[in-house]
Every structure is written in structure tokens, then in C-alpha cells.
């Protein structure tokens, strides 16, 4: 963070004044309309970031379902899926988000005099996200080539159109996800006044976003999209792993078709999860009815409500699916 909200102070002055302002204004600071707007905007951007992150990882078979794409040639299914996982999603997204945010912070100081504060942040974030998306695309190409090369004993071919055709998708989804994270990081630092610098906030949010994308949306890809021939309403037995669908309605199935399926459920669900985390975490800090401990009390209430929701889902699914799984 280099410039304060009024656009006149340097980083040193900013941090000094921020603390003084907080001490004098107390918790009423958090009730400013701009803070409430920022909380809502951060939540909305987090929803978008979650959706795009999940679709990007599904398109490239990143994260855990990747093991199935990797196994398929070993049991005789030659496929045309893009296969790019080398690291897990959390470190990967942490790295891309931190890269994008670092470039954005550097450019924002350059753009500040010419474009003003808000526009400089938006413009710098776009350039930062472009850099991160370019790195992501290069990473994806080399990861796919090296992964496919390791499948040579199983006759998995390396096809040029499989590499080139999904690249615009990675670039677009990766760009949008990193752009959203960079903007959330600027909002968190500049308006919500988190003391961490923007790139570190982006790293932390990136790791969390990757974790959530890997935990929620990828289930829809790994359990349903890759195994659509299996009947709905069952897990994939260990003995069937690697037996993925390689045929589409017409010809071989490819990675461009994957978001067509996962954007209907997996992507929005990931967005819902990350958006809810960012929004509820910030929202609990807007209130002041029990002094400093208000966010803690609200957090405990939300966790108890989530426990009840989880239990309700468990009871619902047991009643709904019990008869089927008994067979």
C-alpha cells in the first residue's frame, strides 16, 4: 500500500495516520458507508473469483481429478484431455495471485498521477492479471507436455491442437480469477484497512481460493464429468479409477467441453463458498454491539448455524439416497 484513500499521503504517512485514525474513531470507523460497500464488493468479487478459478482448474484437469486423467492411459484409455497439474491448486493460485498483485502495486504508483487513485488501481490490476495469466499459460503448456511425455510407455500421443485449443480458456479464466483477487486485495488493504501489504493479502487469498476450488467444485468434475457413464447417485469405486469417459457426443471428448458441464454447478458452488467466506468474515466486523468481541460472537453464531445446515444436509441425503444405495 503506497497511497491512502485521499491519494495524497505516502506509505509511511499512511500507516502512521491509519493507526491514529483508528484510535480516535474507534469502531465507528467500520460503520462508514464506504466500508459497508467495500464488504459487499469484496464478497461479490470473491464469488466471481471462485467461479473462474474452478472453471480454470477443471479445464486443465488440475487438482485431484488429475490423477484420473493421468491413470487413464495406463488402463488403455487414450484421451484428449488437457493435463496440467504439477503443483496443487493452493500454492499455484497463491503464486499467481501474488505475482499479479505485485505487478499491480508497482504499476499503480506509476499510473497514480495520470489516472487518479481508483482508475490507477483498476488499470494496474488488469496489467497485473495479464502478467499472471501469461505465466499460467506458459506453465500449462510445459506441464501438459511433460505429463504427456511421461505417459509414453502407454502410447498416449502428444497432440498440438489439444495443447493450443484450450489455451485461450486458461488465459481468460486465469486472468479473471487473478483480476478479482487483486481487486479484493486492494479493497482489503485500502478500504477495509488490513495492515498486510497488497501482495501478501493476494498470496493469502490465493492460497485460500485454491483450497476451496480444490475442495468443492472439483468434486463435480472428478465424480460426475469424468464418469458420466456411471449412474448418478454413487461414488466412484476405487477399482474403477482411471476408467474415465473419453468419448463425447461426437468424436473424442476434450477439455473445452468441460466448463460447459461444470459451469452449471461446480463453478457457482465454488464461488458461493469463497464469496461467503470473504463476505461473512468481513461482515462480522461491521457490528459493534458487544465491543471488541462482537466479530467473535457473530462468528460463533455463524459456525453453529453452519453445523445445523451440515446436519440437515446429512439427514436429507440419508433419507433421499438411502433406498438407492441399499440395492
Amino acid at each position: 500500500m503506497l497511497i491512502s484513500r485521499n491519494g495524497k499521503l505516502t506509505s509511511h504517512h499512511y500507516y502512521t495516520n491509519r493507526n491514529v485514525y483508528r484510535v480516535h474513531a474507534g469502531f465507528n470507523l467500520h460503520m462508514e458507508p464506504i466500508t459497508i460497500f467495500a464488504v459487499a464488493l469484496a464478497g461479490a468479487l470473491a464469488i466471481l473469483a471462485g467461479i473462474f478459478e474452478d472453471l480454470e482448474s477443471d479445464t486443465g484437469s488440475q487438482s485431484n481429478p488429475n490423477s484420473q486423467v493421468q491413470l487413464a492411459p495406463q488402463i488403455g484409455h487414450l484421451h484428449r484431455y488437457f493435463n496440467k497439474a504439477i503443483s496443487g491448486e493452493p500454492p499455484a493460485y497463491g503464486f499467481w495471485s501474488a505475482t499479479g498483485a505485485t505487478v499491480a502495486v508497482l504499476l499503480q504508483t506509476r499510473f497514480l498521477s495520470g489516472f487518479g487513485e481508483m482508475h490507477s488501481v483498476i488499470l494496474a490490476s488488469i496489467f497485473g492479471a495479464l502478467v499472471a495469466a501469461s505465466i499460467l499459460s506458459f506453465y500449462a503448456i510445459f506441464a501438459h507436455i511433460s505429463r504427456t511425455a511421461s505417459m509414453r510407455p502407454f502410447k498416449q500421443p502428444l497432440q498440438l491442437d489439444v495443447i493450443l485449443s484450450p489455451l485461450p480458456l486458461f488465459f481468460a479464466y486465469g486472468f479473471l480469477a487473478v483480476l478479482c483477487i487483486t481487486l479484493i486485495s486492494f479493497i482489503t488493504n485500502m478500504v477495509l484497512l488490513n495492515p498486510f501489504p497488497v501482495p501478501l493479502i493476494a498470496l493469502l487469498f490465493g492460497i485460500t481460493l485454491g483450497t476451496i476450488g480444490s475442495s468443492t467444485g472439483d468434486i463435480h468434475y472428478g465424480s460426475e464429468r469424468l464418469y458420466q457413464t456411471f449412474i448418478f447417485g454413487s461414488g466412484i469405486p476405487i477399482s474403477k479409477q482411471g476408467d474415465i469417459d473419453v468419448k463425447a457426443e461426437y468424436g473424442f471428448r476434450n477439455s473445452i467441453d468441460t466448463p460447459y458441464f461444470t459451469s452449471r454447478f461446480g463453478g457457482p458452488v465454488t464461488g458461493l463458498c469463497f464469496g461467503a467466506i470473504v463476505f461473512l468474515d468481513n461482515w462480522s466486523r461491521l457490528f459493534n454491539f458487544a465491543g471488541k468481541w462482537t466479530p467473535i460472537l457473530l462468528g460463533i453464531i455463524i459456525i453453529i448455524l453452519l453445523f445445523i445446515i451440515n446436519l440437515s444436509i446429512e439427514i436429507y441425503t440419508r433419507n433421499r439416497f438411502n433406498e438407492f444405495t441399499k440395492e
Partner: protein
Amino acid sequence: MDPIIALFGIIIGGTLVGVCVHFIPCSAVGAMSATTGIATGPTMLASGAGMMGLMAAAYNLDNGLALMLASGAIASMLMIALTSVVANITYAFGVGVAPTSGQSEYDRFTGFEQKQCLTPGTDGHGIPTQSFISGVIGAAMGGIGGVLVFYSVYTLISPSIAQATAIAMAGIIAVGIYIINGVLPAYTLVGKTEGMTDEKFRTTPKTLYSCLIMSTVSGIFIYAASVVI
């Protein structure tokens, strides 16, 4: 905070982070609905939760350690609870399976029979109540551990450098120590655990010792770099 107490803060915090991973129900093959747990690596999920804890705790840097620890724990718990709920929503409506433990006959908290909802050939799927509670407990430990490391490092280095830089450096070091200690349990969990009801939970002492050694070495280096030198 006294520098020596801060050193112990790093050691205790790092060890808590390592132990917390054993509580968090995770499995890589969970993405194929083939085992119980949230469908990602235990280290990764613990890290994601810890990062949210650090973010929330940083807001309370001026309000004392107790509030920081509480807000870090709550934010981590919120992250794990929401991820578990949304993962169960995906299992319910996207895959069509009920949350089931592959290792327990009955759920320890609800008493539900587990085997009747288990897809044949799998080792469970989803996050049943016992794993949900275990995950939330683990997230609280991880959040407290991460924030303890962050605050200890911050108090160690803040007298010698500017406040903004000290906050950033302490945050980066806390993330580093979190991930180092989060990775160590991977050698005993081998990518899959159902939480505190899992048989692998008995291997927690091994993790405890390794994380204790790792955190002590890290803590001594940070102490030496900031106080002695």
C-alpha cells in the same frame, strides 16, 4: 512480549499447526467420492484455513493477543465449516451421495449407521458430522497456532524495523512456518484422514515431535536473527 516468551510462542504455535492437520478430514480421492473427507490435501486445507485466520487476526493487531488469537481461530473455523458445508452440498446435489464414514460403524455424535449409505467399493464419501466437528476443532488449533507465530515474530522484529515492514515480514514468516509444519504430518497421514476418529490419529505423537523440533529450529533462527544479531 518478552523475546524469550516470543521464542516459545513460535515453538508452541508451529507445533499446534502441525497437530491441527490430524484433525482436519481430508482425502485427495474424495474428489471422486471414493473416500471420506474434504477433497483436497490435508496440508492444503489446513493452510487455506490458517491464511484466513491470519488475515482476520491482522485487523486486531492493535487490540491485544487474546482478541487476535480468538479472531484467527474463528476465521479458520468459519473457513473449514463453510468448505465442509459446501462440499456436502456438492456431494448431495452434484454427485448424489450421502456423507458417510468408511471406517466407523456409527457416527460418534449423531449415532447414524454409516455402512448403509456407503457406495460399494468406496471408502466413504462426504463429510459426516463427526468429521465436521473434528475439522472445526482442528481449524481452531491451526488458527491459534498461526496467529501465535505471527504475533511472536512481529514482537521480535518490530523494535528494529518500521511497523509496516515488520507486519509484512511477520506475515510472510508466519505463512512459511505454517506451511512447513503443515507439510510434516503428510508423512504420517499419506494424503488421507477422517479426522480424530481416524485410525491414523494415533500417529499424532510422531507429528508432535517432528513439528516440535522443526519449530524449535525455526524459532531459534528467527530469535537469533532479530535479537542476538
